[in-house]
Every structure is written in C-alpha cells, then in structure tokens.
C-alpha cells in the first residue's frame, strides 16, 4: 500500500511544490486516484481543519493548505471518470441583503471546504431571490446566512419566508450566524440552527446533513 503520510504532511505544510511532487509520485505508482484525493489530500486537509479549530493554525496557513490541496486535486482530476468525485453536500453561503460584511462569512465557507463540503459563496448583500436561485442551480442542501447588523438580521427571516413560498423549505436546512444573532433569534425566525463561530458552523452542518 502507498504511504500517504508525506502527501498529507505536504498539504498540512501548505507546500505547493511538495504536494505536486508527491501526487505525481503516487500517480506514477498507479495508486487509485480517488485514494490520492481522499486519503492523501483531503486526509491532510482534515488535520488542518482540526488544528485550526484548536487554534493551532492560523487562517493564512489554512488557506495555503487549501491551495496546495486544490493544486493536487487538479493533477488527479483528469484520471477520474466523470462524476466520480463526491463531496459531503453543497452549502450555499452569503451575507443577507443590505449587509456588506464579508470576512466572517468567508471564514465559515473556508472551514466548510476544509471539512469536505462543497461551498458556493455568493458574497454579500444577497437577496432572497438570489439565494433561491443558487440553491436550485447547485442542488444546495444547506443555506448559510450571515448578518452583522441588527437592522439586517431580519433579512434572514425574509429569506426563510421566500424558501417557504417557493415550496422548498423542506428540502433545505437553513443555518444563521453573525454578531447580533442568537439561538433565540434562530428559533424565532424558524431557522434550523445557529452557530457562534466557524467551527460550530461545521459541526452544525455535519449534524444537519446526517
């Protein structure tokens, strides 16, 4: 069996060159492409996610790891049959209408990606209609809404109401977060959950998709 330790470590280090070298080595050794991705690349990324969660890695380091992982995946992709690559589910994420706060939402997206979810980040100031369109287009399973202002958090409610109106509320789980958000507010507007930070968001998504 191929030893993936070196490859995983290169991902953890965020060492692009090393990752590419190790992936090529594995390919030459005829290792199953899916194993390269799941055990080698994503395996390393899972460690990164864990270490970030316990404050053992900084965001720039996580981003470097993610970039190197993606570089590795690009090398393997041509060897895969169509549709063979899977993920743990698709998350549509964005900051709600009227609110331009970006970074907190991006961090949650980053952590979700590290944990093997597919993330569609719509950006900021997103209307209910835009969220709905993205869910439909990408077969989203989770809708993650962010708001940092007390005066925009009610846009979360409108977005959930739009889901109901479109008859798709049962097909999607809605999670919310941001400085003024609380579990109580989440209950009030009928969201499926609230997360206080990026790590909690990952756990919440995992739980909801079980």
């Amino acid at each position, binding site marked *: 069996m191929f030893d993936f330790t070196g490859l995983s470590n290169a991902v953890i280090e965020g060492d692009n060159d090393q990752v590419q070298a190790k992936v090529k080595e594995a390919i030459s050794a005829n290792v199953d492409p899916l194993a390269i991705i799941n055990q080698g690349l994503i395996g390393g990324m899972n460690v990164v996610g864990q270490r970030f969660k316990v404050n053992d890695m*900084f*965001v720039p380091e996580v*981003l470097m790891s993610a970039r190197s992982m993606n570089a590795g995946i690009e090398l393997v992709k041509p060897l895969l049959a169509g549709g063979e690559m899977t993920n743990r589910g698709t998350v549509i994420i964005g900051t709600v209408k*009227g609110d331009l706060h970006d970074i907190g939402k991006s961090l949650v997206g980053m952590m979700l990606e590290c944990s093997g979810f597919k993330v569609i980040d719509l950006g900021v100031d997103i209307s209910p209609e835009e969220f709905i369109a993205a869910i439909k287009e990408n077969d989203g399973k989770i809708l993650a809404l962010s708001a940092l202002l007390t*005066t925009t958090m*009610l846009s979360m409610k409108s977005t959930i109401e739009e889901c109901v109106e479109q008859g798709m509320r049962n097909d999607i789980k809605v999670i919310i977060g941001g400085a003024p958000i609380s579990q109580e507010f989440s209950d009030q507007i009928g969201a499926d959950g609230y997360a206080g930070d990026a790590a909690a968001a990952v756990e919440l998504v995992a739980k909801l998709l079980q």
Partner: protein
Amino acid sequence: MASLQFNELAYTNLNEFIYGHAKKPVVCSNGMVIGGGTVYPEVNLTLPTMLINEETMPKVLSQYEEMIHGICSKAHELLSPGIIIEIELLPPCTFNPEWGVDVTKVVKGVMNEYYTKFGLKSLLRMTVVDIREGKTLTHMYKGEHWDNVIKTFRGCAEAGADFLAIESIGGKHLHDEAVMNCDLPRALFSLGVVGCRDMAALWDEIVKISAETNCIPSGDTACGFANTSMVMAHKNFIPKVFAAIDRVMCAVRTLVAVERGAIGPDKDCGYEGVYLKAITGTPISMEGRTAACAHSSSVGNIAACLADCWSNESVENVRLLGGMAPTVYIEQLIYDCRIMNVASARGSALEMRDILSESDRMYDPQAYVLDPGVVLRISQEIVKGKTHFERTKIAASATIKELRSAFQDGLVQLDAKELKYLDIFEKQLKTIPNDEAEFTQFMIKNSTLDKFDPAKYDFNFDAVAK
C-alpha cells in the same frame, strides 16, 4: 486642496502626552473643549433588531429619541460636565440621505431640550457610513454612492451635527485579502497607497462641507482595516503581531484626514488615534473596557492612557435590569471619566496613565503599541518618511523592531508562533521595493479587479510614477 505637513511630533515630552490634554484642543461653541483638560464620555448607540424602511422610519426615529432621552437624563443626574453622542448612521440612512437628516434632527432636538431645560452640555458626532462598496458601485467619487455620502454629510451638518466623521473604506477589499493571508505588502498597498489617496479625496470634500456649514470635521478611523485584523487576531485566526503592525500602519492613513483639514476629536474605534495625537496634537476619542458591550478587547485599560473622549463603541437599545443599555453605558462612561478627571485634579494623572498602561501592555502586542512611550518612539520614526507609502512602510518596520526588543526586554509576551511571524513579516517587508511606482505596478498586476479596480478610484498610475 492644500495639505498640511507633519514632519515632527506635536509632543517632545512624554509627561505632556496624556489623556484629557491635546496640543490642539477643539473648542466648541457651547464651551466644551475637547483635549482641554477634561475627558468627556462619548456614548455610541444603535437600533435593536428592526428593519429600516419608509414604513418603519417613525419607529426608528422614536427609538433614537428614547435612547437620547435616557442618555441625557442620566448625564444630567450624574452631573456630567458634558457629553458627546455619536450616531453611526446605518446604511439605509446614508443610501437615503433624508433619513440620516431626520435622525440628526431628532437626536439634536433632544440634546437641545436638555441644554435649555437643565444646562446639560452635549455635542453630536454624526458618522456617515461609507457606502462606497457593493455590487452596484460604479465609481468612488461620482455617481449614486458618492453623491449620497456627500448629501448625507451636508444634510447632517445643516441639521445640527457638531462633528462630522466617517470610517472610510477606500482600499478595504485589498486589505481584507491581506488580513486573510497575513500579507503585509498587500496591506501596505491598501493603506499607504490606495487608502491614503482615497482619504485625501474624501476628506477634502468633508472639510469643505464643514467650512460651509460651520461644523467641525473631526476624523476618520481605520475601522474596516485594523479593527478587522484586531477581531481576527482576537479569535486566534491570525497572529496578534500582524494586528499590532497593521494598527500602526493604519495611523498613516488615518492621519490624512488631519492633513486635509480635520481637527478632531478623532473617532473612538481608531486605536491608531494615539499616533495621530502624537504627530499632530489632535484630540482623540478612544474605547476600551467599557466597549465590551460591542467587542471584547485586549486593550481595555491601556486604550484610556491618551483618550480625550472615552467611548463604549456601540450598544443596542435593549433592556437590561438597570435600564435601557445606552443609559447603562453612559453611566459607566461617566464614572470612568470621573476617575481620570479626579486623578488629574489631584495631580496624579501621569501615575493614572501609567497604571492604565501597565494594566495591559505586557499581555498583547496590540496593547504594547498603545503605550504612550512606545507611541512617541514609533511616531518619531514614522514622520521621517517623505510619502505616505514610505511612512506606512516605516510604521511596519519600526513596529516589528519595537516588538522584538520589547520581547527581549521581557516587556511583552509573545509565543513562538508570534515570534515566527515577526520573522515572516520582516522578510515580507524586505521584498517591497523603495520605489512606490514599481511597487504599485506590481501590486496592481497581482490583484483582481473585484478587490481593486483602479478605474473606479481614478487611480492615476502616472501620478504615482512621478
């Protein structure tokens, strides 16, 4: 418009560099003098969970009225020598300038009522939100966004604002990227090149409006910049030393407001204001422990060392057992100010300042760079730079040097990861060419248009190259 040059510090004596006193105090028409010896409470407030639109505007206005009544009544009861109220307008109240004007009128109306009835002195700082971002922005200095910002400034000034302020965001998207990647050169480009240019254009306009409306152009803060770093560092997402260096770099950008004619007091959430005070003598507002309602802090006490106004940053109008939160917070601020002012009256202000500094300085590099002595030393280096670009670069390198020697002297705690990043940032700095044009060319080539679109900034490459 002409630009002031600050090539030496306003302070040469550390013993004069202290809270409540500024070399260039701001004298207001009601007799309050900011930086004239008294630290004043500056209370900041915001709406509870609610929508702002045409329909809800009456409710919005009555919320503001209720909050200001509570605040003024408490300030009168506790015999505050004067208060400052800051309203940071919410986006819809800048997108619709007339709403921002209505808020100003209601707030100032209550303040006037308490002055007439009880003699309570108060000043109103209107902070217009910088809406120049988002999908529909076409240009930074013309079109709907710019026009609304300018209209809101003028409207608020005419409606009775005493101070105009903003937390401007030119170059912010570049900086967001820099923070996420701990990319100091990119932060430098955002702050020292793009940000400073944007500040000049924006503040020329604000100073002009102020002159025409008999209002005071107070200042800017790098809230969208260094405070983003601060929050990220606080969550352990990035090294604290990045946030500390970023804070000092931001000083050069924030200073541009004063170069273009702002006279203070600088805004509360700009902790870099201490550098502004050192270099220009402008009075500053600061926030610390009593802003925990808005965000946790590692500079809870040290932030007060040089404060001329003392603020709670922001609190929503929610009910606590002791009353509505804005009323609760003005009370806390008033008592905080009493401690500082009584210490001054007893001749113990310097000792109080040093206690406040010693309280926090050791535990976080972000606190360390707010120590008055450190501020003077680094400021002395900054003013040696000839351009904003140079000054921002010096700010970074001087801060790294200061932190390194402080660590060696046991004056600040830095763990191995933080120290590693000091090395990394030092290396990053060395890659930056001395030629601003060369640097700019490189950065633009390596930025995507969604982070920085030179065309929207009228970014004249030739001007940089000169």
